[in-house]
């Protein structure tokens, strides 16, 4: 067994480790990578380099713009046909691999289990693919009669000049259903993040606000940036319903296009994954006056805090009382399990490198288990996700960011909620915070090592240095890390477990960590004879 570091006096200064990592890189690369490393000091404003291009040749965790657009944001909505325009692979790999669960009512549409592609062939690349795309849309309509079709561009599409937006408009007019396109070619941005932005723009332009409907409840809210991996959204839907808040629309876990269409009738937007969805929150505020708050339903404490915050907004005694009742009841269950698993988890070390918000949110769950996060970072976040939204005005706009359309949003005179604007002002006076994301770094301990877009070489070195008890990342990293003898928890797919959101989710995660941190199997890696002295002279039957 590896000897553990003594962390009783706090985390070790990681400077030497950083130098050792950089020593392997060519000088220019070292200089660039060093800016993405921070030895954290929460008492200071530290800057980290993020959302910059991955260096060619580097083995990165990152995916592409298309993955962020089609896979992450639009993937979980069940009744839109997501037609991928491109060669077959891009659509194939995004087919069901993100585990977005959905509950379909009888007779409802569900295309999540299907994979649609124009399967471009070389003649389409040479002569253009628009004709084939139109035929594919017509065929999809004829066979499935969907409510809506989204068209997603993959890398070759932009280059050969196919105009998915023009095709969408034409087909929309011809078929009479909502059809919209996304220019989310993989190379458009630095990572998945560009795809989130493109998806936000497209959904805002083509979907949000299409359907007005009368109020369905006294307290109407949307949940943004919750993708129902492993059933997380079901947990939260249950909580909101019990509390008496009407969850109009989730972007986009367990969602339908209709729910998004009337999402503009909400009173409050709650943002879970800030990175992937803050754009829609901002645009909805500009156009409809709906304020947004940052929430996190990962971790029991975070769940309680977020529920309270949402309830507080409505300033309603019954709602507040109900929320408190739920929290008190659920916390009792949570506490019972937490106390039971603590002996297995107490004092252990964790690392997490994943996504654009989970590497932050999951630290809360680990804290509840008295597990220290020694190092963390995001795969595709921006500086504001590390340092807080206060740095947004200072973020350099580079060519990659300029690539993505910044929608000009105008106030909708008819639907704009002046009442919400007034309410926001009044609440602000009372110290209630809106549009408030402080980022990951202020909440991490001194000397914890923050790394943006961590790569394979760096992963090996930090494992060697910290010898963590659990490492959180994705499928590509899973077995690499485990071969080092360190268990890896996937925080994209949850290793096919979960849900981990809400109170029930916290309990599930505690139990999962009890399993992962408590198992004896890692002690059996070495064969027993490896520690025996070599046997000389033998009775083996030689021939």
């Amino acid at each position, binding site marked *: 067994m590896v000897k553990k570091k003594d962390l009783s006096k706090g985390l070790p200064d990681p400077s030497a480790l950083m130098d050792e990592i950089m020593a392997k890189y060519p000088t220019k690369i070292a200089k660039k990578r060093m800016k993405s490393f921070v030895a954290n000091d929460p008492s200071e404003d530290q800057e980290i380099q993020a959302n910059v291009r991955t260096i060619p040749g580097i083995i990165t965790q990152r995916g592409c713009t298309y993955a962020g657009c089609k896979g992450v944001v639009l993937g979980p909505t069940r009744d839109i046909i997501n037609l991928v325009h491109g060669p077959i692979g891009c659509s194939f790999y995004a087919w069901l691999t993100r585990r977005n669960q959905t509950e379909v009512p009888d007779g409802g549409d569900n295309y999540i*289990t299907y994979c649609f592609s124009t399967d471009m062939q070389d003649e389409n690349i040479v002569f253009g693919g628009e004709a084939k795309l139109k035929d594919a849309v017509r065929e999809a309509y004829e066979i499935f009669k969907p409510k809506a079709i989204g068209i997603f561009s993959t890398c070759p599409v932009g280059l050969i000049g196919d105009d998915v937006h023009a095709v969408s408009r034409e087909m929309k007019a011809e078929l009479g259903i909502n059809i919209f396109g996304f220019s989310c070619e993989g190379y458009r941005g630095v990572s998945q993040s560009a795809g989130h932005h493109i998806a936000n723009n497209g959904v805002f332009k083509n979907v949000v606000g299409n359907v007005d409907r009368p109020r369905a409840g006294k307290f109407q809210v949307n949940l943004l940036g919750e993708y129902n991996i492993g059933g997380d959204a079901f947990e939260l839907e249950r909580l909101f319903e019990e509390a008496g808040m009407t969850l109009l629309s989730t972007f986009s876990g367990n969602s339908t296009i209709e729910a998004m269409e009337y999402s503009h009738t909400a009173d409050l937007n709650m943002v879970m994954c800030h990175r992937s969805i803050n754009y829609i929150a901002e645009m909805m505020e500009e156009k409809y006056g709906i304020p947004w708050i940052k929430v996190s339903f990962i971790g029991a404490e975070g769940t309680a805090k977020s529920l309270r915050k949402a309830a507080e907004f409505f300033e309603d005694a019954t709602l507040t009382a109900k929320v408190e009742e739920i929290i008190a009841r659920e916390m009792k269950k949570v506490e019972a399990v937490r106390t039971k698993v603590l002996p297995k988890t107490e004092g252990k070390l964790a690392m997490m490198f994943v996504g654009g918000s989970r590497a932050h949110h999951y630290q809360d769950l680990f804290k509840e288990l008295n597990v220290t996060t020694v190092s963390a970072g995001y795969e595709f976040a921006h500086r504001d996700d590390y340092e807080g939204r206060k740095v947004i005005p200072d973020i350099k706009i580079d060519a990659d960011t300029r690539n993505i359309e910044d929608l000009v949003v105008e106030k909708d005179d008819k639907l704009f909620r002046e009442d919400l604007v007034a309410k926001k002002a009044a609440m602000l006076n009372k110290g209630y915070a809106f549009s408030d994301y402080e980022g990951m770094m202020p909440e991490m301990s001194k000397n914890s090592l923050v790394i943006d877009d961590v790569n394979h070489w760096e992963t090996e070195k930090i494992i060697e240095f910290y010898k963590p008890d659990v490492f959180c990342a994705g499928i590509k990293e899973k077995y690499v890390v485990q071969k080092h003898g360190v268990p890896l928890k996937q925080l994209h797919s949850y290793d096919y477990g979960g849900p981990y959101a809400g109170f029930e989710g916290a309990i599930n995660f505690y139990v999962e960590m009890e399993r992962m941190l408590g198992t004896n199997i890692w002690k059996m890696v070495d064969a027993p004879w490896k520690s025996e002295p070599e046997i000389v002279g033998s009775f083996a039957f030689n021939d």
Partner: protein
Amino acid sequence: MLLRHTTDKIIERKALTVNPAKTCQPVGAMYAALGVHGCLPHSHGSQGCCSYHRSALTRHYKEPVMAATSSFTEGSSVFGGQANLLQGLDNIYKIYEPDIVAVHSTCLSETIGDDLGQIAAKARTDGQVPEGKHVVVASTPSYVGSHVTGYANMVEAFVKYFANKTDRLIKQVNVISGWVEPADMRELKRIMGLMKIKSVLLPDTSDVLDTPMTGKFEMYPKGGTTIPEMVSMGDSLHTIALGEECTTLAAKALDNKCKVAYTSEDLPIGLKATDRFINTLSKIGGVSVPDSITDERGRLVDTITDMHQYFYGKRVALFGDPDQLIPLTEFLLDMDMKPVYIVSGTPGKVFEKKMSAMLAERLPEAKFKNGPNADMFLLHQWIKQEGVDLIIGNTYGKYIARDEKIPFVRYGFPIIDRVGHSYFTSLGYVGGLRLVEKMLSAMMDHQDATCSEVKFELVM
């Protein structure tokens, strides 16, 4: 219903693919390159492709799958990816220290028109490739062919680059393997061993994608065909190419370059295809077949005769890759099963030719289709029209199997919800026995779970 929109009404499609029975070239190129020792696959394009291909292979093998990418920007998409690849190679050799970098293209770099051969040559002259290290390139656009094509292209590239003819003849046989599992590669080597034939197997993913847990990560595991082995292929007596779609390119290239003649055989799946493989080995190696192999064959035939009643007349739907489907169809026919529906998204004439030859007489009602629009949606529609007793294919088949309550055997790529495929062979007579066992278990478990209590059997 999981696939609630699928009905038996078939509307002809020419543009839309739904639920494909194929994926794209580079993932095949990546897999093939992992079967070469000390080799790091490199994806020349945007990083998304590489990420997807690594993820797909990782989910299937549950092992580390290392590969690098050129991480294209919008700029590279306009001006070409040469600068990215040059910088990429420089970084790779300095940071990850492979002996070989196997570069494959993607749709993006192909559409731009990057010339990989020229860029690799420039990298050599400019010094991005250290002395004694190698860059092998393969063009793998996914708007041509499928993952199978990518595998074939990469294997061909290795042969072209390394195989070398000298004036000394080596008494060994080259075996170029189609896309099979690490356990299958191991089995091929075991069979050669039993036949006492010295051989070089290319590629060879055993001990690469089925490595033991040791507590130590190896970037380049001990398995994989080595450089000296690949070089020596030019001096071998003969080449056996297993699986036409995956291996003909490489076998031909070797013949052209080094005048090593080849014999093309089906992958040894099932009885007759294995018979042919063993026969060929025996002839080419000039060795007689050892009793141990004859006994293995006997055990397979014995089991089929024992259990024949459970196979007879059973209707089967298959999807996957031509090289597997062809011998598998033959095997099912030989057991008196009825492979009534067969689809493969992989285009190419081999499938059509061999399937017609087998099925026209023995099972004229069989429907089979490959290439564009030959997808799992079509297969499912056929099943809706008239049901089957068994489905064989990759993990995606489980959605049809559950909806239609049909027994299901996982076979092919990817299998991402079960283990075993990478550890237990389905090649040769031993592998045939495993296939037989899997099919029987699936069908008999189904019978046990669904028959009436009156008809419930203790002995089967």
